[in-house]
């Protein structure tokens, strides 16, 4: 009894500065443990492997920068996958965000059924990442798929295999990405609600039309939200894997071999763990650099009304 009491006292004890260190660390302990065990240690391991020729079956030999040098100077597949991933990300993200913004503006009006529309239009986002949808996409755009059948109906006979066509394959993945616009749409909607109505009223008095209202009020006021969405979506764009793995399998002729898929192949088809680790670190550096660039450009186009206490 006495001992139990003392533990309780210990946990609830605060230092002179008002800190309660023991209780604080006790509560965040799950995260600290997970962070060290599943992130920090693996990251160091991966950094070490990237300087070795580790191949799962053999032991790891230190080879210095050889992996990195080979990737940069002598791996055309790497450069191909970088090119494809950049194209995929920087086409699909703006497409998805503009679609999300368009619908958010449409749904930010006081009309009947708007609440229902908002909910229903969010559905593709919740199922878009699933294998079921990936499998469906494959058939939709296949040679005998629904798209060709639809085109045939309106008199445009088409025997194109959209999935297998070198020019069209990547676009089927981009369309799938744009289709999942639900989350940014909801975030935009929340942002639109925060814009004070008085601004629009003032603009009407000044004789502005809807386009001027949109570009002079909506876009600047929404820019912090656009920024947030852009950063998050860009990062996840670089990570795209499942869709390319299932729908196009990286083909045809590596035209949809996105970075994550190439890395996966190196690691789990060829078991070149050292080489794949170096690829992973290059990805980390590229993503970090892009995030940094986006943040650096932020002051030019992101408008903050007041400095929050973040």
């Amino acid at each position, binding site marked *: 009894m006495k001992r139990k009491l003392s533990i309780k006292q210990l946990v609830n004890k605060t230092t002179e500065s008002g800190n309660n260190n023991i209780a604080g660390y006790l*509560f*965040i302990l799950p995260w600290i443990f*997970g962070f060290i065990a599943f992130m920090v240690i693996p990251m160091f391991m991966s950094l070490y492997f990237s300087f070795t020729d580790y191949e799962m079956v053999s032991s790891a030999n230190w080879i210095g920068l050889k992996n990195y040098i080979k990737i940069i100077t002598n791996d055309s597949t790497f450069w191909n996958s970088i090119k494809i991933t950049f194209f995929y990300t920087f086409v699909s993200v703006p497409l998805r965000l503009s679609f999300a913004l368009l619908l958010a503006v449409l749904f930010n009006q006081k009309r009947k059924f708007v609440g229902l529309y908002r909910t229903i239009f969010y559905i593709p986002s919740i199922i878009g990442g699933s294998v079921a949808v990936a*499998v469906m996409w494959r058939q939709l755009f296949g040679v005998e798929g629904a798209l*060709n059948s639809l085109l045939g109906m309106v008199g445009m006979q088409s025997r194109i295999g959209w999935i297998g066509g070198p020019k069209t394959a990547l676009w089927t993945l981009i369309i799938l990405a744009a289709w999942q616009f639900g989350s940014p749409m*909801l975030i935009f909607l*929340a942002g639109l609600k925060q814009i004070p109505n008085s601004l629009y009223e003032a603009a009407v008095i000044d004789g502005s039309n809807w386009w001027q209202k949109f570009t002079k009020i909506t876009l600047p006021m929404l820019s912090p939200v656009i920024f947030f969405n852009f950063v998050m979506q860009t990062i996840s764009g670089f990570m795209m894997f499942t869709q390319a793995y*299932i729908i196009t399998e990286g083909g045809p002729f590596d035209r949809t071999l996105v970075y994550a898929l190439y890395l996966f192949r190196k690691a789990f088809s060829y078991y070149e763990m050292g080489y794949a680790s170096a690829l992973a670190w290059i990805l980390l550096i590229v993503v970090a650099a892009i995030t940094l660039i986006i943040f650096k450009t932020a002051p030019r186009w992101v408008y903050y009304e007041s400095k929050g206490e973040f």
Partner: protein
Amino acid sequence: MKKTKKMYSSILYHSLILIIGFCMFYPVLWLIASSFKGEGQIFRNAHSLIPRNFNLGNYVQGWKGFGDVGFDVFFKNSFIITISATFGQVLSSALVAFGFARIKFAGKKVLFALMISTMLLPRQVIMLPQYIMFSQLGWINTFKPLILPAFFARAFFVFLVFQFIQGIPKELDEAAKIDGCNIFGIFFRIILPNIKPALITSFIFSFYWTWQDFFGPLLYIQSTDKYPVSLALKLFSDPSTVTNWGAMFSMSVLSLVPVFILFIIFQRYLVEGISTTGMKG
């Protein structure tokens, strides 16, 4: 005059939404329709949304699965993985969020920033060493790599719950303290009941992400009888088998049923949850 103009704009508005909506939902409707079509019908008039006769044969065929492992096993595996991982993720994230939101301790700001930054870390960087670690622990071909890491909080959910706790007045904590509540009492009696919406939002997202996760099982699960649904669906289109499209569509539809049910029950929490995470970032 003004009234008719308003009516026209209303008709225009709703027709525009309906057209966009139809294009968007066409693929989903098509998937459902195809799952009821007989084998011959799937590719003849492939675009049609109305199967000639409702044919449940695909569902019967698909449910049988592969070899002697049926979809009852795949669904059971998916539920075991998803429910345990989701439980762990929500509980641990709530604990951590409370620690960050309500307790003052040394180094809090740095740790919080560190945690937020992990949201930007590409999964690929830690995937290989994690695989090596788990294989040395003998966890390959078990559910452990898919469940256990979930018990150590996830930054996204910590942030979501954190935001929510911030909105609960601190006076409640103070009052409870005066009444003799210690820090655990405050968490369990004051905070937990008040953050239900955030917990539900986290639960749904965690459920969705685990249920639909393909990459994790692809890495760690090898034998068919341990496959979750997501991996099993991929088996339909493996080069080694002749694809049974009808069966594949029908099981794809079934795999989305739990997702839709949760969505119908909890859509309000989802929509609100998403909105708040994005706004205060």
